[in-house]
């Protein structure tokens, strides 16, 4: 186990470097750079963005240097000083901008996973044990519906209902009064009131998926001979189901962490923009549109690393839960 952990952690280093190179190169691929994006802002405010000025600005920000030079400067700063560089668009150190947002992203994603499990687990078991019952059909129908509705649309509809029916202001995580208040019970309640729509929207489609997986897996297990044997020996039905087949069927839940997290982070990008949440999503899109490369690069690097770590976490958990899985 220890050896496995160690080798996986060592593998993390080259993966991290590959992610950093790929993101940095990808960001540079589209035409133009931050300065050309800045030029259109200058024009809008009535200043001529002459070629001489743009060239001087490129020199100022080091954008006239070769890409590899910029890359090593950036990576060097991260490794030696934990300095992620400067966001040109915000005139702020990247480090100032991302940690809060990263924390919200992780928090929202994990709450969503937990909610997904809480919903999908009992429903999946019920559907499998009561196959082709009226409730199984209802859940199946809702499940397909949940998979089918685009989440941004659901978010928009929820936002409109919140505004027009309840007079709620749905954007953001806090209402006007608590936005800058220190933490208190009232602020926490305010947060909960704003947190459920994004959590609901985000969990709908993954819940639907997991219900289907749980149902299918459990159905397979329920037909296996060991279940019949246990039943023949007079074991109580619920105890039997929960103790053996459900445990086996749990595997996809845990391995889901590995793919649900990146999925959540990317769909949370759209939801966060729609619902105006303080996660990494909106800043990520904007930094890409403005080619604010140190900000964009740092964000992708950190989100990529998070994904690697969560894969590792789910592998370890799988091994713990299912003794049949050997890590070596």
């Amino acid at each position, binding site marked *: 186990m220890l050896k496995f952990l160690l080798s996986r952690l060592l593998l993390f280093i080259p993966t991290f470097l590959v992610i950093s190179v790929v993101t940095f190169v990808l960001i540079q691929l*589209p*035409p*133009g750079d931050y300065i*050309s*994006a800045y*030029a*259109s802002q200058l*024009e809008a*405010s*009535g*200043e*001529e*963005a*002459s*070629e*001489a*000025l*743009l060239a*001087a*600005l490129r*020199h*100022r920000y*080091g954008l006239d240097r070769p890409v590899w030079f910029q890359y090593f400067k950036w990576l060097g*700063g991260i490794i030696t*000083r934990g*300095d992620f560089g*400067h966001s040109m*668009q*915000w*005139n*702020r*150190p990247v480090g100032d*901008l*991302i*940690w*809060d*947002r990263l924390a919200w992203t992780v928090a929202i994603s994990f709450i969503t996973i937990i909610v997904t499990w809480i919903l999908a687990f009992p429903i999946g078991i019920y559907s499998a044990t009561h196959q082709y019952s009226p409730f199984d059909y209802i859940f199946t129908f809702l499940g397909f519906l949940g998979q089918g509705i685009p989440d941004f649309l659901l978010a*928009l509809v929820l*936002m*409109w209902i919140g*505004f027009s029916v309840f*007079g709620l*202001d*749905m*954007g*953001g995580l806090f209402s*006007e009064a608590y*936005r*800058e208040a220190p933490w208190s019970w009232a602020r926490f309640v305010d947060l909960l009131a704003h947190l459920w729509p994004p959590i609901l929207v985000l969990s709908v489609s993954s819940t639907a998926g997991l219900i289907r997986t749980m149902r299918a897996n459990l159905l397979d297990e329920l037909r296996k001979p060991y279940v019949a044997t246990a039943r023949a020996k007079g074991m109580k039905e619920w105890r039997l189901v929960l103790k053996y087949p459900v445990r086996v069927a749990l595997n996809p839940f845990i391995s889901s962490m590995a793919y649900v997290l990146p999925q959540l982070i990317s769909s949370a990008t759209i939801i*966060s*923009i*729609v*619902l*105006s*949440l*303080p996660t990494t999503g*909106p*800043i990520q899109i*904007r930094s890409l549109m403005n*080619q604010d490369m140190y900000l964009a690069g740092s964000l992708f690097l950190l989100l990529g690393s998070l994904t690697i770590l969560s894969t590792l976490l789910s592998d370890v958990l799988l091994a713990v839960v299912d003794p049949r899985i050997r890590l070596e």
Partner: protein
Amino acid sequence: MTRTISRREFFIVSGTTVAGTVLIACGGAAPEAVEEAPMAEAAAPEMPMGKYREAPALSEMVQAGTLPPVDDRLPAEPRVLEVLDQLGRYGGELSSVVADPTASLFEISNGRGANLAGRNYGLDSIIPLTAESFELSADSQTLTVNLRAGARWSDGSPFTTEDVLFWYEDVLLNEELTPVIDSDLTPGDTPLQLEVLNDYSFNLIFAVPYPSVIDILPSLTLWRPKHYLKDWHINYNEEANAKAQEENFDAWYEVFEYHADSGETQQDAELPVLGAWVFERQDTQGNTSYTRNPYFWTVDVEGNQLPYVDTLRKVVVENREVLTAKVLAGEGTHHSWFLSLADFPLYKQNEESGNYTARLHPDLRASEMGFAFNYNHQDEVLRELFNTLEWRQALSHAIDRNEINELRFGGRGVPRNPIMHPGPSFWEDGMDQYYTSYDVDLANELLDGIGLVYDSDGRFRLRPDGEAMTITMEVDAGRADLSEVANLISSYFAAAGVNLKVKGQDQQFLMQRMRANEHDIGVWAIGGSSEPYSRQHEPIRYRPPWHWSSTPLSGPLWRQWLDTDGAEGMEPPDIIKELWDITVQWQAEPFGTDRYKELGRQMLQINAENVWLIGTVGLVPRASVIRNTVRNHPQAENILSIEYDMWNHYQMAQWWIDS
């Protein structure tokens, strides 16, 4: 329905109010007369001694001994600002919502600027703002500026010509900080010179007569807080580069700019400013707050120190739908820049529940969408065709501007070509209506007349050389409004047998293609077309390339030829040379003279007759939403336009909240 805007609704800038104006005059055309409000007595707590009064929060600080008394903080002769409607009471907050954290939010930034000069409420003159007065010499080569003796930065340090000299020598003339000096400050291609007369007066000296300098004064700040910034400047601190390293910057000029930034991305809360509110903090979402400047050098007629309102707040959301929801819910005190005319009925419906009033104001944009064929096209056949007057006349007639107006702007705009806005002294009625009638038969007749025959299917016309003709209109893909109109135009052109394809393009890529002269048609929203804008910057809409030359709509090579006196680029036809001369002379002519009017008229006339720039619908009003408790704000008949820097001249320092 079309709405025309009468001449009376527009005010011209008269550069005559210049020297020695201390009071802001409410011109004859000012929105509303000043009214003495009975509540003025409640304006401030009792301050038995002293000449001036201040906000309660500041009085407390004075009593606690953390701030000098208000009389000591104000200059001997503070600027006296007449209020727009009624005298105010202290307190409250002005706030607005922005859908892009680093974008300029005029609703807030307009409250903070403190430029050399500004415009009065009636928009009919340019008046001193931070300066006490200014005067241009008879030969138009020397501008004398007097600062307000005793005015202070927001940290209490005196504001003097030291700060002007610092700006001139150490910022403007420093090649690291100012690699390229703005053309506004280099008349005759020579940087202006500074001559300091005493602590509060200085001269700006120009190499050539520069009468239009008055028009650019509202956009100038000729100072930086030397006492605060010098520690980061290499001329004053040899260790500046080491200091930069300490703060994780590579070079002194980077860290200097970081600390000197007083705009939307300001981070340094210690930076002294001259405006009415001081940066307080910005969180990681971009939500920003500003608090009152205790040293703001302006009072109302009763001697109450301005601003009335305690704080300014910029609230950031991530998209326009959330912004709309917040506006409808009544969040924020005033909005306009991010509002959409299409949502105006929605704003109106929710007026009562949101406790605000939605208004439509005159705006001066000449055309919401306009385009120019590329008159320097690399393909010789197309180039010659585009330069044929009948071609442009025909396609201007082919556009159904009324339909565009109904479909896109609810009939609230004016179908027209982008020839300024009615109102300037050199404007003649009908200038914007050349070849704008919707007449497909006439269009076809004109195109037949220049020998453009149909292909064998009879669907589209062929190029003059007999090959199939497809013209591509590339549009910024981020601007759904432009693509929508472009698609309508494509269908109108098809009726005249011209095959036009619309293609959405990434903005950066599109700009690159335009700079490289690789496009068929340049498409943009035709703003920057008004008289004040053309004076303050340059007449970008009335000569090649009909936009800033960094994003040329058409004819970049002509402009290059004109800029380099024929050394580079492509020689333009005589009419363009003539137009160029006229615009250059118009710019150099003092505002309002007979010659100014004649040159201005010719500039518009040549553009109108030659339709290089074809427009669709212009003079579309601008929506505003203002909370009902706000006082002294602009009314529906008042211009609200980016051409006049949005809310700037409505002086937010005198707005107040009636709670």
